[in-house]
Each structure stands twice: as structure tokens, then as C-alpha cells.
């Protein structure tokens, strides 16, 4: 059964407004951001995009500046999908930061990359990534993801 601490509650999917999962998509490439946003919206998700790791952390309420977060609007993020190769903070580094946080560590993180390098895939999975998807993303990839998201808990 659910424990008293919300971070280990298995019902985080249900804590959302209605049925639509809220996904945070992180990618430094403008075209990829637009594409992933559309793919997610087509799969009935509410989407917020960020163009880099630090901005994503800000939105998740994990940066030092707590004012500019999504949590303030009552919109809890149900999944994070991030590009691996980003200047500054990579997707892998973002993944580690999320998994280290007490409030966000239960949220599934999906890594996207154009390069399917086994060592890269393994280290992401070892660090707790839900899935590693190859770019360019297709509708079928995203549908699979969101189905898992809706079915795996609650």
C-alpha cells in the first residue's frame, strides 16, 4: 500500500488533473522540441518543453531558484523525456540529478538519442532511466511510452 511519503506513492499518475499525463520534454534542438511536443499531444499528453537541463530543473523545482516552477501551478510532471546530447548539462547528467532528488526520483525519465551506442544506453539504464529511445522519434514510439505510463501504476 502507499506509504505516507508522496515521493514513494505508487499513485503519482492519479495525482494529475484528470486523465492527461503531464510530460516535460527537454531538447536543445528547436525542430526536435516541436516534433516531440506534437507526438506527445497526439498521445493525449499535456506538454511543457525546456531547451536545456538547467531550465528543466528550474521547472521541476529542483534548481536553487524555486519561484519559476511548474509545481506552483499545481501541475505535477508525470514523465520527463530528454535528449542525451545537449551542450552544458547532458541528458545523462539531468537524469542523475532527477534521480538524486527526493521529490522527483520516482518520475520516469526517458532518454532520446540519435546514436544507439550500447555503453551510452547501459549507463542511462543503470542510472535509472525508464527507457532509451532512438531518434528520430516516431508516433509508435511515443504511443508505446504513454501507454506504459498510463498502465504501469494505479
Amino acid at each position, binding site marked *: 500500500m502507499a506509504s505516507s511519503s508522496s515521493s514513494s506513492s505508487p499513485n503519482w499518475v492519479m495525482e494529475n488533473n484528470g486523465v492527461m499525463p503531464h510530460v516535460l520534454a527537454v531538447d*536543445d*534542438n*528547436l*525542430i*526536435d522540441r*516541436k*516534433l516531440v511536443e*506534437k*507526438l506527445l*499531444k*497526439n498521445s493525449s499528453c499535456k506538454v511543457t518543453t525546456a531547451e536545456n537541463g538547467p531550465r528543466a530543473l528550474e521547472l521541476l523545482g529542483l534548481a536553487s531558484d524555486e519561484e519559476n516552477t511548474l509545481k506552483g501551478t499545481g501541475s505535477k510532471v508525470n514523465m520527463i523525456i530528454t535528449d542525451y*546530447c545537449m*551542450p552544458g548539462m547532458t541528458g545523462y547528467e539531468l537524469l542523475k540529478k532527477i534521480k538524486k532528488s527526493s521529490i522527483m526520483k520516482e518520475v520516469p525519465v526517458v532518454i532520446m538519442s*540519435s546514436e544507439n551506442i550500447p555503453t551510452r544506453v547501459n549507463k542511462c539504464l543503470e542510472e535509472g532511466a525508464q527507457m532509451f529511445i532512438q*531518434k*528520430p*522519434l*516516431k*508516433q509508435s514510439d511515443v504511443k508505446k511510452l504513454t501507454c506504459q505510463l498510463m498502465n504501469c501504476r494505479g
Partner: protein
Amino acid sequence: MEVGQIQRQWVDCMKSLFIEVSTLLPTIKTLEGFLDAQFLQLKQLQDETNPEFVVEVVSLFFEDSERLLADLTNALDQKAIDFKKVDAHVHQLKGSSSSIGAQRVKNACIAFRSFCEEQNVDACLRCLQQVKQEYFLVKTKLETLLGLEQQIVGAGGSIPMMELSL
């Protein structure tokens, strides 16, 4: 011009975007279309809630690519070339072109990156020319295609359905 004619022009344009005989190697004819299946994915994403999706993404691609090509030209024009920076720009362009299905631009970027790694200036400059050429070719064709679509819809017609076995 009647709608049927414009629709036929559209079909020809689509075909030429996907099926193009490459004469890069004179003795070997390869099929390397300007666009690949990823572009068809994009088209499938367009719906009533976002009827201009493809036009929007393609326009973003044009803006983004032209900015990157200008940055690349500048970066390779420096006395001391920062190959990491050059590679970063090519990586971006490779990503965008891959995401919209601009296959030949993507492949030209892949070749470009290997020369960045080698820090081969002359090869990089040649690659830049190649990428620019491929970009402008696909840009022209996409502009034609989207222009025809506008005409068809404007004349009350519908965009033909195409079966492409890629």
C-alpha cells in the same frame, strides 16, 4: 489551371523528392531520395487541430538551417578553427535534417562530422559546400511541394494520397 493538373504536379514533385538516382559515384547508381520515411511521419502528424503543422516545422527547419550554415561558414573562416564548435553546429544540423526526413542533408552532415574529428580543414570546407548544396536543393523542392499544396487547397481540392514503398 484546374485542380487536377496541380494535383498531378504535386504527385510528380513528391515522387522526385523520394526517388532520386544519385550520380555521386559514376559507376554505381544508388537511390537516395531527398526525403526519407521520416517526412511521411511528419505528414501523418498533421491533423485538424494543427492543419499547418508540416509548414510550421519545415519553416523552422529552413530558419534553423540557414542560421547554422552561416555559423559554419563563419567558424571555418577563422584563422584558428575551433573544430569542436564546428562539430557542434554540424551535429545540430544533422539532428534537424534527420527529424524532418531530409536524408541527403543528414548524410552530408555525417560525412562532415568525420572530417571535423580529423580536423581536416580542406575536407571540412568541401563538406560545407556539399551540405549547402543539398540543403538548397531540398529547400527548393519542399517550397515547390508546399506551394502546390496551398494551391490545391485554395482551389477547393484535396491533397492526393500517395503510396510510397520506401
